[in-house]
């Protein structure tokens, strides 16, 4: 029996939203569904891919009756989804959304899981049973009596999963449920989902941006502009380079490597798994074949005449939240880190590793106690020779209260996670100019302000004339993110710090943001610091990176120096290229690349040339 079937379904949102500038990374509101036929078999695991705004989420909401189609027919287990049977449909279909905080109703885990069964009138004794079942199915039994706010992102999402499971649904929809999680949280959720599909025989519809997640499915569907444009086995779908490009998606990084190797003359098939790729590469390299070694594009990092200081020095930096209370947490515990002017620096770490706390020190959002106005130096105790704390950023000494913190904040720009949520002004122009006016006071003429705003907007790839008078809230998600970044770079900070700048964007949007950062870095920004969960992003873009763990710097250095096996102890993973290199070593092939894809390919081809 078909679990879900769509027959020529059309759907559109209200007209007012249709005014948004058409763009590939616009959000769901712009493109509705235009004639979708689609079905899912019982117990199947289907992955739905597509650029932001392709209609994926609309699809999920239609199945559950949260939206009603304009025309066409939707059935769930043979029953048409309509107003009368909404309850019956929703009992069978569970959805887990993106933001874990916005789908929890209660403060205690078991109360939240009980919410669904209570709604459909399950007797209290049975609700207890269902809670037990649902929590054990997602591996959260021990948290039954915990408070939801104190859980990690991955745990919160597993509670959301349990809350849906307690309704005993036959279909589970995950609407980008892992997008806001770190790698270990993502793995927790995906493991639970796979188990539900295999053991509890639940039909799964997984909406995602991550190719490695789609690969776990039985079937993959690609949507673009409200239509289903590709369909097939996940592996087949993910290897169609041309089509993916056409629909605003990109070939997974692993496949880009395979293709580059083949182009160079090394005979390897398309592989998504690092182990398999390593095996195939070892075979091909040792066979020895005529290869063409490509020239590497310009090397990373720049050697520039650095007259302005963009360096950071932290010595013995510690910070404690809620000191001497039951919630005392040592967020930073003697951090030692030096970042030189001109670096494109990565900061990695698990949620709670201290990386955000560290970053907030850099422009004195968290001030050192000695820099507080009310600080009075204490008399030193004899014999208590504690190590001195130092913190210097872009030439400012942050341990002194005499430091000009306004000037510091102008020179050290900070882009927070999901910066688009900080937009507030009536027009894009006003929002971007906000920081500029704050820092410069009355010193700037309106012409100068206009010029700076124009430049900032054009740097982030938006047309000044088109967007300046619009409300930031009528732009798409991707455009809003860029406006928010423009609002920080408008003062041309010497040091730019970004917390997960690409989070939640589709692969194309991610690539655009990274390209943007590189061009800023090359043009005028001395030091760029990126906080990220994405190992591949760090390996591909950064000159050096630091790994935070337990409030300390666990490792620091070039990507190839920090991505070694021990990094797994911190709950992080290796980037794809490092995984392949480690696996290749077992076959006696040592590449020792800098872990960027281009260098990896070049080293592999050089290695093959040796055998030829």
């Amino acid at each position: 029996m078909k679990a879900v079937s769509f027959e020529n379904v059309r759907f559109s949102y209200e007209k007012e939203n249709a005014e948004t500038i058409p763009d590939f990374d616009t959000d769901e509101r712009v493109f509705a569904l235009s004639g979708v036929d689609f079905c899912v078999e019982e117990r199947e695991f289907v992955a739905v891919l597509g650029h932001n705004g392709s209609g994926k989420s609309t699809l999920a909401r239609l199945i559950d009756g949260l939206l009603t189609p304009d025309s066409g027919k939707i059935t769930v287990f043979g029953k048409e989804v309509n107003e009368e049977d909404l309850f019956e449909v929703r009992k069978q279909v569970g959805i887990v959304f993106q933001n874990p905080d916005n789908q929890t109703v209660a403060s205690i885990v078991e109360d939240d899981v009980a919410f669904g069964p209570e709604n459909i009138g399950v007797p209290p004794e049975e609700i207890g049973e269902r809670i037990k079942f649902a929590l054990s199915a997602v591996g959260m039994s021990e948290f039954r009596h915990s408070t939801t706010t104190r859980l990690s992102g991955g745990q919160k999402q597993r509670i959301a999963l349990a809350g849906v499971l307690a309704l005993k649904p036959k279909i589970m929809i995950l609407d980008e449920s892992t997008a806001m999680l770190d790698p270990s949280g993502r793995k927790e959720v995906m493991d639970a989902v796979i188990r539900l599909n295999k053991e509890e025989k639940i039909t799964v519809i997984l909406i995602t941006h991550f190719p490695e997640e789609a690969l776990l499915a039985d079937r993959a569907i690609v949507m673009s502009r409200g239509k289903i444009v590709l369909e097939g086995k996940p592996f087949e779908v993910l290897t169609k380079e041309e089509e993916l490009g056409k629909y605003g998606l990109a070939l997974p990084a692993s496949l880009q490597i395979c293709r580059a190797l083949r182009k160079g003359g090394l005979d390897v098939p398309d592989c998504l798994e690092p182990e398999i790729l390593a095996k195939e590469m070892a075979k091909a390299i040792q066979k020895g074949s005529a290869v063409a070694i490509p020239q590497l594009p310009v090397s990373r990092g720049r050697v520039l005449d650095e007259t302005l200081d963009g360096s950071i020095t932290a010595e013995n930096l510690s910070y404690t939240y809620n000191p001497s209370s039951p919630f005392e947490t040592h967020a930073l515990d003697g951090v030692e880190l030096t970042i030189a002017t001109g670096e494109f620096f990565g900061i990695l770490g698990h949620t709670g590793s201290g990386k955000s706390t560290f970053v907030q020190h850099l422009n004195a959002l968290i001030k050192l106690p000695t820099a507080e106005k009310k600080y009075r130096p204490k008399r030193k105790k004899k014999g208590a020779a504690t190590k001195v704390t130092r913190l210097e950023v872009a030439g400012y000494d942050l341990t002194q209260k005499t430091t000009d913190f306004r000037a510091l904040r102008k020179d050290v720009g900070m882009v927070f996670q999901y910066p688009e949520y900080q937009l507030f002004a009536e027009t894009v122009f006003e929002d971007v100019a906000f920081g500029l006016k704050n820092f410069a006071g009355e010193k700037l003429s309106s012409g100068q302000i206009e010029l700076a705003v124009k430049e900032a907007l054009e740097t982030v790839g938006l047309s000044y004339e088109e967007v300046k008078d619009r409300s930031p809230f009528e732009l798409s998600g991707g455009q809003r993110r860029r406006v928010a970044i423009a609002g920080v770079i408008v003062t041309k900070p010497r040091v730019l710090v970004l917390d997960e700048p690409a989070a939640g964007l589709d692969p194309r949007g991610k690539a655009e943001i990274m390209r943007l950062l590189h061009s800023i870095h090359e043009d005028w920004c001395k030091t760029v610091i990126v906080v990220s969960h994405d190992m591949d992003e760090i390996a591909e873009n950064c000159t050096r990176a630091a790994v935070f763990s337990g409030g300390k710097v666990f490792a620091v250095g070039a990507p190839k120096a920090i991505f070694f096996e021990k990094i797994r102890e911190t709950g992080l993973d290796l980037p794809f290229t490092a995984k392949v290199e480690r696996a290749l070593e077992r076959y006696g092939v040592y590449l020792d690349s800098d872990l960027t894809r281009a260098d990896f390919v070049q080293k592999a081809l050089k290695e093959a040339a040796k055998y030829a």
Partner: protein
Amino acid sequence: MRDVSFGQYYPANSFVHKMDPRTKFLFLIVYIAAIFTADNFYALGACAVVFLLSALFSKVPLGSVLRSVKAVLFLLLFTALLNLFFYSGNADAETPLFSWKFITIWPSAVRFAIFLCVRLFLLVLGSSVLTLTTTPVALTDGVESLLTPLKWIKFPVHVLALIMSIALRFIPIFTEETSRIMNAQKARGADFESGGLVKRVKAVIPVLIPLLISAFRRAEELGDAMDARCYSGSNVRTKYKKLRFGWRDLLAAAVAAALLAGVIVLRVML
């Protein structure tokens, strides 16, 4: 911003935690009544003792309970100060402590200001014991159950209770969000600490608007998530946790009755 503990549940397995939320609620009402009936420091002392007992039996560290005052500290001191300046004493029976132009501070004003402060402190502390030891769900269940009679006049008791519980749940989330947005705007040079009243009020706009927008967005998403989990507010709804009165509730009722009686006696006698 991180240490606002008002409205946050502190998980523990204590006498107070195990009490029926309805009892705790009624207890709080009696306690508040006692505080307002008290007109001398002895009676207020009795209230303080009851508060300390309840805090002790709740196993919540006293520090956490006391921290809830922080949020309203400014308001408390402001009220006390106002009273200090504008409370006019009895010119026949006492001499002013201090007099300058139109400001005169009387000994009785000092006494009254302190009294008021203690009274308000006890009020906030008592309420925070309730929220620290009762999960929002239990609290709403309690309120819903206590308000059941209103259903007779078609008052949507259940909806009201749910709104309350969700509001409580989102307090820590919005606290965190506020500090995040404030930090982001500070990084763009916003100044919340200096300037006159007009400037400060203006400075709040870049925080308030994103916060409001976020609240709407969250509300919309939460609504969808609740719909998807079959919420309809209809009568089929069951309750996983049934409320039951136990021996602890009887004991608490006795304490509450004793407190109120004691305070009334003290008021009449002194």
